[in-house]
């Protein structure tokens, strides 16, 4: 019985290793993103935040393994503006700068941490771009923020 259990454990461990090896996820801090109007944006250890009532645009990039199939793009954001949403346009781009897959995702409500997720079709990626609009401070002083973004791909 012990031998069977040991064998089962080995099989499960091998499967886990194989799964880990086949897909790769890289995470990035939003502090790596550039912004359109730096006067509107505050960089903190939590990410990019708007510091004025005006909204701001952030441009974020990622470089998966060349030619990999990017199968998930995800941004962790905080939308504390009661009237405007935080939206990100996510793109998978070829090595010669043609977008091969795009989608736009917005927060649904003003709450704490939300995940904006895009599952692109099968692709041969060169890079990944995110262009996000962060709403400004609302009348209650709520701060909206991009914290991190992640790109999962399969070589």
């Amino acid at each position: 019985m012990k031998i069977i259990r040991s064998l089962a454990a080995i099989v499960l461990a091998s499967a886990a290793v194989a799964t880990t090896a086949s897909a790769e996820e890289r995470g990035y801090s939003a502090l790596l993103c550039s912004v359109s109007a730096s006067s509107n944006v505050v960089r903190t250890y939590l990410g990019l935040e708007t510091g004025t009532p005006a909204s701001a645009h952030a441009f974020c990039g990622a470089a998966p393994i060349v030619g990999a199939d990017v199968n998930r793009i995800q941004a962790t954001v905080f939308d504390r503006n009661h009237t405007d949403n935080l939206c990100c346009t996510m793109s998978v781009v070829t090595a010669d700068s043609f977008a091969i897959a795009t989608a736009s995702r917005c927060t649904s409500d003003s709450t704490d941490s939300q995940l904006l997720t895009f599952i692109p079709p099968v692709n041969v990626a060169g890079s990944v771009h995110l262009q996000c609009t962060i709403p400004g401070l609302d009348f209650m002083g709520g701060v909206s923020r991009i914290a991190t973004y992640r790109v999962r791909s399969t070589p």
Partner: protein
Amino acid sequence: MIATDGALKMRRWLVPAVTAVTVGVLAWAFLPQRRVAQRVAAPPEMLVQEVQALRGEVGRLRAEGQPKVYILPTTPAGEPVATAPAENAPSEQPPERTPEQRQKEAADAMEVKFESEPIDAAWSVKMVRDIRDAISSAAPATRVLQASCATSLCRVVLGHDAEDDQRGVATQVAAVKPFQEGVFYDYDHAPNALKTTLYVVRQGYSFRD
């Protein structure tokens, strides 16, 4: 020399016995089975050498019998083509596809998926209208050559006059309502006939369903 009675009796008995033993020994020595037995009982070193020699012979015959693989690279006409046999070439592995070929395969798969879907008439008519309106306002430099929708996907063929228009179309439409859920782009860079085919996924569906 005088022989005693006992000695004579013994000689009479000894002659047939010695004859029988001699005949037996000769028969044993010259029988064919004896030779086979001797061969089988040959020293193991000889057998090993014999087996090794036979293996070498089989290997040589196999090598001679195998077809030689020649790789003929696609070179422009007139250039000499290498004809050396590729002894170590991996003949069973297909050649690695380029990123362009893999991307084209992804586009072909998308086309097959679109073509295989039934048409949701009610949704399709409205979606085609929304797509045409969105393109005309978001990307005015682009012409809609064709637009049709099935159940989970729409296919939109756009025409462009300049490569910059073609390159920028994704940025122009990605955040516009009918395209927000997700778009796959297939570019045709043919000179003077720049075209982009967009596969637009319906809300609530996924490209990887």
